[in-house]
């Protein structure tokens, strides 16, 4: 409401200025001084509540300056515009000094802002997939298997969406195994896990050139322990971003 009101005032002022120009006053109207004062008035709107006295007197002076302008008493008007500008600046200063009042004001503003945010519901996951530093999630495999489980597939879909959002990044798919079985065979198993994941990412639209594969077999466990839980965590593919220049 405040804004509407002020716009009306500005509009009125504009009409006055135009009228003055049309009338073609003898001495020069205080154009510069007037526009500075009007701008100061807009800037000082928030000070009305926290420095009411100064603000009111600034408004009075401004109104008088306008009246003097319509009466073509340009020199007097110029002085009034200048002092109005100063008073508005003074009002802003006073309002800022009145911290208690300002805090209340800010809180109210924040509440108003929050109410605004509720309106458009943005999916945070979707937003994250659009950030460059999104963490590509690893997937896990059953024992001696390169089968991509349903759970893993959902993760890969998200990873693929990120890769499609950032085609300027290559992704290195690292295949890993648990430490059971021969190291040599596990290098092949890790390779097959990573290759299988690459194949699925390609069917999801990721460019082949953006996908690199390496197997670490059982050489880089997440958890260097011997337990079913550790084994399950170690059977995985990880995704490392390689940014092209």
């Amino acid at each position, binding site marked *: 409401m405040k804004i509407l009101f002020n716009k009306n005032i500005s509009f009125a002022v504009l009409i006055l200025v135009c009228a003055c120009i049309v009338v073609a006053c003898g001495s020069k109207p205080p154009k510069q001084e007037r526009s500075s004062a009007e701008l100061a008035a807009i800037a000082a709107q928030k000070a009305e509540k926290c420095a009411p006295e100064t603000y009111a007197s600034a408004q009075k002076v401004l109104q008088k300056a306008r009246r003097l302008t319509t009466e073509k008493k340009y020199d007097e008007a110029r002085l009034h515009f200048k002092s109005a500008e100063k008073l508005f600046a003074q009002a802003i200063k006073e309002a800022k000094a009145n911290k208690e009042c300002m805090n209340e004001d800010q809180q109210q503003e924040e509440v108003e802002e929050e109410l605004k945010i509720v309106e458009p519901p943005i999916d945070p996951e979707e937003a994250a997939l659009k950030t460059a530093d999104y963490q590509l999630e690893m997937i896990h495999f059953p024992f001696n298997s390169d089968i991509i489980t349903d759970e893993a597939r959902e993760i890969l879909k998200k990873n693929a969406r990120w890769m499609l959002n950032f085609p300027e990044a290559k992704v290195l798919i690292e295949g890993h195994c648990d430490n059971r079985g*021969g190291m*040599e065979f596990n*290098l*092949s198993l890790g390779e097959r896990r990573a290759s299988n994941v690459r194949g699925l990412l390609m069917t999801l639209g990721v460019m082949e050139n953006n996908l690199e594969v390496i197997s670490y077999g059982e050489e880089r466990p997440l958890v260097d322990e011997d337990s079913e839980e550790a084994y399950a965590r170690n059977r995985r593919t990880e995704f490392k971003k390689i940014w092209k220049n």
Partner: protein
Amino acid sequence: MLLLFTANASAQLVIDVDPSMTRKYPIAIAEMKLFEDGKGNKDLVAQVKQGQQTLMNDLAIAGIFEVLNPKSFLEDPKTSGISQAQIDFTQWLQVGADYLVKGGIWNLGAGKIKVDLRLFDVTTGSEKLQKSFEGELAMQRMVMHNFADEIMMFFTKQQSIFSTKIVAVRKIDKTKQIYIVDFDGKNGYSVTRNSSINLLPTWSPDGKGIYFTSYMNNNPDLYRINPSGKKTVKISSYRGLNVGASVNRTGTQLALTLSKDGNSELYVMDSNGSNLKRITHSHAIDSSPTWSPDNRTLAFVSDRSGYPQIYQVDVNGGAPVRLTFQGNYNQSPAWSPKGDKIVFCGRDERLVFDLFIVDPKTREITRLTQDEGNNEDPAWSPDGRHIVFSSTRTGKSQLFIMSADGSNQRQITNGKGKFSTPDWSPILKAMP
């Protein structure tokens, strides 16, 4: 079990050494005699004792001897000598010895010694072997190993393993280094000293090179390095895996696994990396090749049946033939030097990894290890009498050796770090 043993000691003894033979040769190793001028030297006394221990340990590992307990000996070492005329053989017959080792050591001063070693046939009272050595005191361990080699040569007419080494991977902190120890686990040192992962070492048949895979260049590439750790040469660096090299018995060709065509397949190349030839074609994993001693066939692992099993394939092509049908997780095959056995690692019904042998002709399976942790990564000694492997039976993975029938299992490493994937060197020193 085949023992051609004649009572006539002068005749050639030919023992087809089957370590499973029930009767082993009772052998006594008499206390080494330290001659007058060395008696006050504590260091020398300790070295002499150690030398004797080395010889006893070697003959115990050999698998064809029953090394008699010195506590049972009747002879007074102070009064007896080391030559035939100075030995009362009846005293040795009484303790049950068929053979007797005697040794004398002289202090030559300035860290030098003279060693005289002899093997006697107790039943005939005759000297069978005699060896002398003059040199540094520090060499005495090697002298004992050499004499053990000579004793084995005398009995088996074959070169033995007491001058051999074993290469393996040693995990220290986050790195894995190629590491060499003597066959008895002593004198270990790191061959590679980088901050990367170095894997799957294998000897060249002349003992002058070790092939291994390393991530030092951010891809599992194949390299060759001298056992001294000097001079690393890149052999194969195709995109993807370059792993599991196995050298043929003449050293001219390598079999290995490459994944450059999108999946692990077996290939053969010249030992410098040239003349690549693809051997297998399947959507499954084909890996871990090992040459037959006639260089014609490769045994390998494939999971084309759904789970890893041992197969063999002609190097010149043809369809692979499956060798193992028991168990559902058989890996890490190693073909014996004689060609009649393939040792491999299998996971049994209790999900424990143990070592087994498959006869490539009859496909008969024999179990070698049981109820002692996980046992993996088997490799043959060059004489085919022993197998080195890794085991978790004492906690973290360490190296063990055993006779080819699974008997006589001994831990050889127990230092810092975890050991895996050992490979036994060829016989490095020609017998004199």
